[in-house]
């Protein structure tokens, strides 16, 4: 039962993230939306892992790897945004 609830939650997160990505007006919003989506994907993997006890370790390891990749991407995206902002500020000066 709880597995079903959480897979719905995961779908909800993906859809909300997608919606946010489409309506984002700021780079930061886009990054947040993408991360909301990725949280949904991770959760979906974990619900699939938890269908039968004991929980499947392979999707869990995938999620662990995914979290680190996601933060790398987030940090890179933020660095790009900072650079963009700095260059725009420079061109306005």
């Amino acid at each position, binding site marked *: *039962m*709880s597995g079903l*609830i*959480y*897979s*719905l*939650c995961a*779908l*909800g*997160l*993906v*859809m*909300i*993230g*997608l919606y*946010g990505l489409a*309506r984002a*007006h*700021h780079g*930061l*919003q886009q990054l*947040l939306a993408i*991360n*909301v989506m990725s*949280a949904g994907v*991770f959760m979906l993997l*974990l619900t699939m*892992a*938890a*269908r*039968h*006890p*004991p929980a*499947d*370790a*392979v999707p*869990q*390891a*995938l*999620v*662990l*790897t995914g*979290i*680190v*990749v*996601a*933060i*790398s*991407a*987030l*940090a*890179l995206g*933020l*660095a*790009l945004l*900072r*650079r963009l*902002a*700095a260059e725009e*500020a420079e061109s306005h000066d």
Partner: protein
Amino acid sequence: MLDAILTLLILALAWHCVRTTDLFEAIVVFIALGMLVALAWTRLQAPDAALAEAAIGAGLAGALLLASLRQMPEMSATRAPGAKTTGLGWFWWGLWGALGLALVSGVAAIQTTSVSLMPQVQAHLSDSGVTHPVTAVLLNFRALDTALELAVLLWAWMAQKQLFVPGRQTVYPLQGQVLKTAVKALLPLMVLVAVYLLWRGSSAPGGAFQSGAVLASAWLMLWLAQLPGLSRKQGGMRLGIQAGWLGGVTVFLLVGLLGVFQGAGFMGYPPDQAGAWILLIESAAALSIGLLLASMVLVSMPDFQEGTL
């Protein structure tokens, strides 16, 4: 019951996070979302992922976001939210809905199948050198994925180094000794926790990622307290930091190559030595992850100047 409430809270926060036009608020909500998601994952019997999400996905990501926020332009007034939707609006909504339906049906289809790799994992667990299945998958069965992931982390950091712009803002100077004293007292404890998490990873939830996250926050605290820490000015420290950045991937690949010569194949270890090699790799990986994550947060600080790393 708890699950339902948690789900509703998560969805509400996610909705708010993408709806709000206040960027600061969006970030704060995002951090809270990360915490709740971590909680949900403990409910899904995934303590490893929950630990990592709380520390990295909420904690360090939050620090990154908040530090970057101050260096960004405001939401531009010209592209104000709520601008008139074009005639295509309905089309996109339709597409969005169709995708949602497709996902629902896909997930429903998955629910009825029952493919699990766990029996295979458990069958080989005794040969893996560790007793915790997640660690066995990460560092033995799918070691290549983890090595590549470290490479991604390193690559992302190198790209950020190239994109670096020196911080322009001044930050209020630190007053008093409270933070310094506290950090001095807490630092040994944090290192201890990091080592403990690393050691524990072989038999229970924990491991290089979680340990690396703790190390990263230790280093960040050192920097925040303006203590003489790992800065480039100090002699061989610079070389040490660079070695730390590269260490995770390098050690991983070297041990992986060793497997070729020992006849266990690339990224394979002989069962009797597996435990030792995994511990070695994990130590290097934790150090690398910690250094890389902390470096990423550091360069995003509004007052960070080049030459410190």
